[in-house]
């Protein structure tokens, strides 16, 4: 091969960090993301290892030791966060409650994520009629008040963990569809998509291997935000008595059960409320952080 042209002799000097190295560097330089992710990670571990961590059975009632205060309000270390009106250990219920909250958050976000992403990507990629139908469905969905619809459905079908997850999963796909549609529209016009099509790549291949990797960062951000959304909605439904049913330990339910005593024993509301607040804040911090660090490598 005789080429009149020589490759860049300085090539070795310009090979910078790979995209994954750059991502790693940005992740470890982002405090909000690190804090958010550690809190979420910690709560995830707590939820997974709940049987090992909980000092008591969260369902075990003990009418002899009802309404015991937490240690910092003069209680004893047998029940560090006290007991509820049925004498159940509050810390254990809180630990098991993390399972319910996170499970609802993750599964509802997954279900709505699959629905919304499929709709959004299809609308963005194919455009035309598909786009018109999807945009119409998004508008219909946005016109429905989520809480009221969820309340109505749960009231008809009866509250249970499965029903709550399904209802939330089927209701929260709107933001996925909107964001994925916009991201797909943006990426679809790139020349590498045209190049892949000109190579003869099939439509599923173009979508999966050329488009999806480039919109995944936006997807992750929406997943986290919708997780937080779902967790809060579950708490709200449970608080209204239409979500997870007693005696399942759920943070929303704990707030609800504590509200009768709120004036006398405010900690019964404040503790689950605070944990809920911390989890949602941490997830949102993580989502914001992910949005910052996953900016496409070629943007700068």
């Amino acid at each position, binding site marked *: *091969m005789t*080429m*009149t*042209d*020589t*490759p*860049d002799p300085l*090539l070795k000097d*310009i*090979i*910078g*960090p*790979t*995209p994954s190295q*750059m991502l790693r560097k940005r992740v470890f330089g982002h405090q909000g993301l690190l804090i958010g992710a550690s809190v979420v990670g910690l709560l995830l571990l707590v939820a997974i290892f709940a049987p090992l961590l909980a000092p008591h059975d969260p369902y075990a009632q003990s009418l002899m030791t009802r309404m015991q205060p937490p240690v910092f309000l003069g209680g004893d270390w047998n029940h560090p966060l006290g007991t509820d009106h049925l004498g159940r250990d509050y810390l254990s219920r809180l630990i098991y409650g993390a399972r319910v909250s996170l499970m609802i958050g993750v599964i509802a976000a997954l279900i709505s994520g699959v629905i919304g992403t499929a709709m959004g990507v299809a609308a963005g990629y194919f455009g035309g009629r598909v786009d018109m139908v999807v945009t119409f469905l998004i508008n219909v969905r946005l016109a429905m008040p989520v809480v009221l619809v969820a309340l109505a459905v749960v009231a008809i079908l009866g509250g249970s963990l499965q029903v709550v997850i399904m209802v939330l999963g089927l209701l929260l796909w709107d933001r996925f569809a909107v964001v994925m549609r916009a991201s797909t529209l943006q990426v679809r016009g*790139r*020349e*590498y998509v*045209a*190049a*892949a*099509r*000109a*190579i*003869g*790549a*099939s439509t599923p*291949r173009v979508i999966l*291997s*050329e488009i999806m*990797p*480039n919109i995944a960062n936006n997807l992750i951000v929406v997943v986290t935000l919708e997780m937080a959304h779902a967790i809060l909605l579950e708490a709200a439904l449970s608080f209204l008595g239409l979500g997870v049913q007693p005696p399942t330990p759920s943070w929303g339910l704990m707030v609800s059960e504590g509200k009768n005593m709120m004036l006398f024993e405010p900690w019964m509301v404040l503790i689950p409320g605070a944990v809920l607040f911390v989890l949602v804040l941490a997830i949102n911090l993580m989502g914001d952080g992910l949005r910052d660090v996953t900016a*496409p*490598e*070629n943007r700068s």
Partner: protein
Amino acid sequence: MTTTAPVLELRGVTKTYRVKQGLFGTPRPLTAVNDVSLTVPRGEVLGLVGESGCGKSTLAKILLGLENPTSGQVLVDGQEIGAQDRMTLARRIQPIFQDPYSSLNPRKSIFDIVSLPLRVHGIGDAASWDKEVRKILDIVGLPARVMNTFPSQMSGGQRQRVAIARALIMKPEIVICDEPTSALDVSVQSQILNLLGDLRREFGLTYLFISHDLAVVEHLATRVAVMYLGRIVEEAEVGGLFDHARHPYTQALLKSVLTPEPGLGVPDTQLGMAYPNPIDPPSGCHFHPRCPRATDFCKKEAPRALPTPLGHVECHLHDPQSPMFIGKEG
């Protein structure tokens, strides 16, 4: 004229879009490519020039199978390529795009990008892909170690070499170069042009070279087609076109080329008003509102394609049957 059979032939290719204006407007037809017939002999470089919006990019998309023509035929090696033969088309015609920052997927390694054609077409296995990628990277002047790097780690010129490697790995016969150097710096541009020239000689490639830079087209092309509002208004062998441009539009285009020669000043192209909106093409000869030599006849009658010694031209000035005929020249 070369005696070799044309490797690429277009017969009356037309592409019409329906464009909706405003929220409640009824869709109106926009003819992006209007009855284009071209033949490109094997091993030649057809330069396609014209202003933005003239339809040259749409024509490229049709050849790449990204758009289907509304009517007309595309023939490769004398065989008609139908809408269903995207895979066949892909093996024979490959693109090099303008912007190497947009034409490479930023999430894929150079190996993934260059080997994609082989993987899509199921040619060979993992071991042979590795070998082929190394070979083609060497041909385009990149060391094999770039295989595991990502586009963001490369300069514009290196990225364009990757794009060329991807286009050539399946050994296509025809390469559509859509403004392949206009996004690059001057010093890098010449490297890529040299590479394209070398590759053509080495592999007997045929190029359709779309560019707005007429100096570059003159340097690389063997034939040139000038496009205006979807029509090829003049087509000729490169020397003939640059030395004896017949169409007033071609003459204006050539005049607007700014060569680095001091003291010549900026030419007056006399084109006057802006490029017309393709949804409302002017009557008669589409070029008449900007043509310094237009008459009322041009507003009414569309010119027909007239053969010239090495091509054709669409202009009343060269039509012996029109009242504007200026007589036979050279």
